[in-house]
């Protein structure tokens, strides 16, 4: 009847749901808090958020295949302490230490990928196991104590350059690379293919195992980068850093349009999703909401976003468009 206009509007909302939610979160905050829109505050948000966004991009890769990577928080912590340890205790210098620790992250990703791709272990189980094991390795390596004494070469990565936080540049760089991989390369289109139907992909001559293997390496590398930036930001590597990172990363991806069923998701979506969560947390801080209450609000926002996504999807589907 006359709901064609409404349907078109709903379609637009769904296609850009991340931006719509971002707007819906930012609007009341800018009205309620005078500090929210100040340049300083926005830069703080950008600094904190860009570090998480890198891990969220990696998570999006795993979600698109229909999987998930629960080990990202542990991998971030291990990468951070390994780099700090190699740089300070072993005197390897910042860049060799960073390189080796990222290699270690990639190795863990490869292990996850191998378990999932060739061992046929469900991603949830495989990465849950490595989440525990890698966190354990981190604690063993550090004996539970932070590693400090990082030089300026290391901490530079969480400072400002030309008034803009360096992690934002890192995020931009990672975003461009991963955007090209996910949305322009053969490998990326195969990621969407196996998420859209693994058996169909196999019968079309694609090897799902190789693709998944690569995806978990990418996810671990992204988590490792996040871990390095967190370490640089704190001037020390904390064995307990990155706890709960997997939840933030999954929530960000899904807020940005990634489907938990696989087959959908984007790099830009992951970034927008992370900013939704980052801005929300920042705004609640400015409004002096106690941090325990913030947790509850964060959870609720996530649920509302997911419900909105499902409701809109169903509504549009039932109307045959």
């Amino acid at each position: 009847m006359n709901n064609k206009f409404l349907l078109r509007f709903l379609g637009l909302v769904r296609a850009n749901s991340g931006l719509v939610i971002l707007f819906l979160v930012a609007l009341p905050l800018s009205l309620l808090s005078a500090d929210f829109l100040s340049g300083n505050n926005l830069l703080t948000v950008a600094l904190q958020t860009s570090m998480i966004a890198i891990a969220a991009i990696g998570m999006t890769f795993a979600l698109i295949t229909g999987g998930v990577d629960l080990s990202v928080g542990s991998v971030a912590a291990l990468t951070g302490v390994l780099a700090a340890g190699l740089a300070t205790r072993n005197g390897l210098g910042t860049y060799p230490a960073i390189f080796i620790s990222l290699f270690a992250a990639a190795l863990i990703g490869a292990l996850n990928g191998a378990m999932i791709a060739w061992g046929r272990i469900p991603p949830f189980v495989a990465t849950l196991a490595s989440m525990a094991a890698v966190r354990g390795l981190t604690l063993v390596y550090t004996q539970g104590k932070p590693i400090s004494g990082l030089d300026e070469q290391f901490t530079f990565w969480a400072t400002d350059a030309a008034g803009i936080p360096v992690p934002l540049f890192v995020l931009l760089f990672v975003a461009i690379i991963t955007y090209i991989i996910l949305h322009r390369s053969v490998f990326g289109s195969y990621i969407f293919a196996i998420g859209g139907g693994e058996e169909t992909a196999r019968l079309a001559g694609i090897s799902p195992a190789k693709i998944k293997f690569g995806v978990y390496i990418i996810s671990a590398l992204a988590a490792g980068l996040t871990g390095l930036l967190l370490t640089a930001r704190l001037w020390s590597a904390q064995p307990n850093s990155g706890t709960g990172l997997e939840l933030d990363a999954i929530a960000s991806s899904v807020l940005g349009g990634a489907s938990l069923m696989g087959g959908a998701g984007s790099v830009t979506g992951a970034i927008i999703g992370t900013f939704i969560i980052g801005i929300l947390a920042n705004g609640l801080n400015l409004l002096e909401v106690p941090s325990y209450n913030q947790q509850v609000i964060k959870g609720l926002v996530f649920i509302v976003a997911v419900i909105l996504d499902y409701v809109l999807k169903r509504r549009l589907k039932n109307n045959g468009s």
Partner: protein
Amino acid sequence: MSRTLLFIKIMADQTYRLELKNITKSFPGVLAVQDVTLSAYPGEILALAGENGAGKSTLMNILSGAFTADTGMILLDGQEVKIPSPRRAQELGIAMIHQELALIPQMTVAQNIFLGREPLFAAGTLVNTKMMQAEAQSVLNQLGLDFSVTALISDLSIAQRQMVEIAKSISIKSRVIILDEPTSALSERESAKLFDLMRSLREQGVTLIYISHRMEEIFNLSDRVAVMRDGQLVGVAATKELNVNSVVQMMVGRELKEFFPKAETQRGEVALEVHNLRSGSHLKDATFTLYKGEIVGLAGLVGSGRTEIARVLFGADPNEGGEIRVAGKLVKIHSPQEAIRLGIGLVTEDRKAQGLFLGQSVRSNASVSLFERLSRFGFLLYEKIDQWVRGAIQQLNIRAANLEQRVGNLSGGNQQKVVIARWLAVNPQILILDEPTRGIDVSSKAEIHNLMGELAAKGMAILMISSELPEILGVSDRILVMREGRLMAEFSRADATQDRIMQAATGQLQNAGLNVHE
């Protein structure tokens, strides 16, 4: 009660079971059903024919509560009813049995029949399993079905699952049962059983609306035929006043010269030789040769091992002994990737689960096999891909709004053409098509048959698996017949008849024509 008597009785009291009046339904950009008025009597089988996209499914979805009509009225036994949901339809006694069966495979027959309305005891907290099974049993008895109520759905054949769906609709006292292409996944024997069941339901006064593309079945089974085209009802008449040509003409709006265009092909060199192929419990022994430029039909009942041959040749299932030679060379095929490299393609039987990425675009579905070739340093060359896809859309006459359209929203015929487009991109030497025209409208079917002929004429070797004997007989140069995992017979086009193929498939004729290659 005999059919004539029943007919006289209906004529006498003239009450309709169901009346649809001026039903219209539009989707964004499409008028799917346009001012349709249609009635059905109690105790009749009304066939609803039409090409895919003609509006049959939409109309039946409105009747079963999945969609709501924009305008129009529905009367059930003379009373106006509103059907806003499938649940309401169920309460009113309208059941729809979809092509994709809605049963839970891990549960038993009885549990599925009573799903959501289990008999309870202990103040409504526990399921009364005994009573449930007893009642399920009595429904199965009523319908003359011989499987156990405690059998798991996953252990039943597709045909038996369909029977369970029907049993479910009977147990909720349905007055109107809609069957959407019920025989598309059934063998002839299983179909016959289903038809017996439908006839007995008709005797019991149930109204059956039967959607089908198969003319034979429509003429065998139905009392009246209603034909839809482009969202409108183009005609309703008693089946005995119609013939196949008149129905097809109504469906497509023009006269089709030949139902199955026969392709003239020249047999070339040997493309594929298979010796003693074996795999699992369904494929025990198959030996045959495929030549370039011919279409070989592979017939047999469902479960006779036809699909398994296709899957083993394509590397999707393991080859447990048995030799495969491609163009004279002995090969081992461990994965679909290797099969494709050897020039073998497979259009799978299950289009939705194995052939397509339903949520993704026409572009990526048609071109996924081309990604590696149309890329540079691992990056996709979108212009070239789009160019190729546009060419394929034109060549295969795929009706899609644009390259971005979700494949899941296309009609069955167009979906199948997208799958075939993907294989054209690979240009295999040997193409296996497993039920290539199942659930597809008449003109898409003819287009696909034409295309198969063209490909064969260019030297491709084609193996076509089909449960539709007229298709096998009309398209194939040579016909192989499987029974219980073994290749039982081979016929040339000239020798083959529907009867002889059925005899071989059911075991009354053995080793006919085998090892007589030329």
